[in-house]
């Protein structure tokens, strides 16, 4: 290089300076709506964003995409009387596919005959061991276990979740994952219809 020494540094500093001003230009262009609004957050994560990207968590939160996964929960349906109907049949596939083996299931048994019945007596997930891989939700044949969107899980002790803590309604599931829930519901309705047809 026979140019002036330090030219490269100055050129680089020019880039920094440009970025510095871009933030303020963007602020002005958005008239103060760049922060704490949904559009503002979307803009900062978009292809045209300039200047700083920072999202001021926890005042601002980036909306999570539908597929986002964090610690499983159990889905229950509500029947006409408002009673919880667990979808889980305690078949144990989630416990068998779980890579860190953090799912523990006790299967119910008929008190008179001692034969197993498709209903979990205990369902425990050690959320500290869970690696959020989502394999349980992926392979559950009854759509009974799904991955949650709630990622604020800090607590002061071990997070060993029992069935009460894990159960969430199907409505909640439809709310966080509308596309998936719709697809699964149509599939299950079609299956039920064909079964009813065969029964007749």
């Amino acid at each position, binding site marked *: 290089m026979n140019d002036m020494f330090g030219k490269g540094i100055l050129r680089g500093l020019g*880039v920094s300076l440009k970025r510095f001003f871009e933030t303020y230009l963007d602020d002005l262009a958005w008239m103060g709506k760049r922060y704490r609004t949904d559009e503002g957050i979307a803009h900062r994560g978009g292809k045209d964003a300039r200047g700083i990207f920072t999202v001021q968590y926890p005042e601002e939160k980036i909306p*999570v995409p539908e597929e986002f996964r964090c610690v499983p929960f159990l889905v229950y349906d509500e029947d006409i009387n408002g009673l919880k109907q667990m979808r889980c049949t305690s078949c144990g596939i989630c*416990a068998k596919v779980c890579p860190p083996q953090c799912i523990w299931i006790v299967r119910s048994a008929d008190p008179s005959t001692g034969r197993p019945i498709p209903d979990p007596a205990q369902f425990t997930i050690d959320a500290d061991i869970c690696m959020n891989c989502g394999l349980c939700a992926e392979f559950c044949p009854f759509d009974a276990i799904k*991955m949650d969107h709630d990622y604020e899980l800090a607590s002061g002790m071990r997070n060993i979740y029992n069935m009460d803590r894990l159960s969430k309604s199907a409505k909640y599931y439809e709310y966080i994952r509308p596309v998936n829930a719709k697809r699964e519901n149509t599939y299950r309705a079609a299956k039920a219809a064909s079964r009813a047809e065969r029964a007749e």
Partner: protein
Amino acid sequence: MATPAPLSSSEFSQRDISLLNTRYPGALTPDGRSGYSGWIIDQSQLLGVATALRDDLGFDYLSSVTAVDYLPQNQMEVVYHIYRTTGGPGVVFKVQIPREEKMEIPSLVPIYPGAELQEREAWDLFGVKFIGHPDLRRIFMWEGFAGHPMRKDWHEPYFEEEAKPLKSRWPEGRPVSAESKNQYGDNISYPDGFEPKGQIFNPEKALYDALQEYSKDEIGLETDRIIVNMGPQHPSTHGVFRIAVLLDGEKILNLKPVMGYLHRNHEKIGERNTYNMNMPYTDRLDYLSSMSNNFGYALAVEKMMNIKPPDRAEYIRVIMAEMTRISNHLMAIGALLNDLGAFFTPMLYALEERELILDIFEAVAGSRMMCNYFRFGGVARDLPDGTLQKIKDLSFERLPRKMDEIERFLSENEIIRARGIEQGVLTAENAIRYSAAGPLLRASGIPYDVRRAEPYSIYDRFDFDVAVRQNGDIYDRLMIRFEEIHQSIRIIQQAVKQIPDGPIMAMKPVYQVRVPPGESYGRVEGPKGELGFYIISNGKPNPWRYHVRAPSFINLTSFGPMCIGHKVADVVAVLGSIDIVLGEVDR
């Protein structure tokens, strides 16, 4: 007279075989086990055959060395994968020895110095002693550790069963936490005849002794030499990595990487896991490029299962793998600049673009870093609505623009040039000898890229150049990453244009796949270099052997030679230019 096995994937021509057979009669036997390929070499002739393979047949690149414990057959096997840096499929050869407490085979370090760390790993984890190895110490476990953990009869603390799924989880699964199992030290056992009381043990002695071995002829004056430990807790070592250096003043006389602080025996876990369970674990290897790790593992298992993903899945895979490469290289550039003292400004510029890529991963795979997206025979789910448009926006508009900006920001900077040019040089010859891979190898002038040398997936459909630079110094290793990002953008641009509609899985997803017995070595060009998975199946739901050829780990073989003669401050820069991730180094 040996004849090639019908299943042999080894790319020996008949002429090569007859050459080896005439020169070393009886040394080569084709591996005839069903599902296996390659050659079994008589251990007394190993060095001779390896020299001939390297010098006469051109297999100059030793990719992977590992051991396999065949407990039922009472046999230990050391497996070598070698390739030509001019491209093409490789050769796998094995040495079999009876499985005993003390096993010895000749070391290949004199022929392929790239075997150094890998043979140490095999010694540490399997207890195979390599005679002739210059520095055979434990590498992941500490000196004084009892036993060799990868042996099949070695059991970890709280051992429950040989293989998952564990019976205690279902149908009578009442949770027990690991803390409650710890009986205040009751799980400690000592070897026979060992009395812990009164023992004085210095685990660092072997390391420091090894460090003192260096060529002494350069120094005329007798001066004090000091040993300095950098790390394991040091911001510039990119994790819990320790560097022990022997110094004369500020000049480095010898350098040894010390690792294992993040060792969790990934391979042992992998052998306990079923095939599907391993997929999320591969994310945790090189946690900056989990999609590539998924890719390599999926390829290895698919090879054995003999399935091929549908077209759409292949395109999605390539797009994801290339985006991973971009995000990883951005991180590497940022971290290297941090190491050079450009504190955090370039890093954050790079992180911005990486953030946008991670947003796409999150939308597609559900997680930003631990993607767990690939399945055997396809991918976990199709691209959600709008994602393809986002990828297009990024690859056609934002990334090219921003990469130019970052390049303008950095490439002419005088400080970077002064710190980078002609520093930490790795010559082309040495790069091959030390089995360097990825950007490290290509920056030294060897245009070796698995995507071109032995195309996998659908990489033969894309038009891209293998980035290569000639000097092999820190600056070249920085600049080659920019070049690779541009090439990756090119591939993504082609892929998003060509991607067809269709299914994303070749078969119905099952929670326990059936893998026929045999071996397979699946390798991909990961962002850090050649990432290989060597898997042996015995037909059960769990792999019998699961080995990862980790590029970060093997690239460290050349770390010492690159630093010797430089100053301490350059160690940081050289390490940054290698670009390691400790999750993959230690496994």
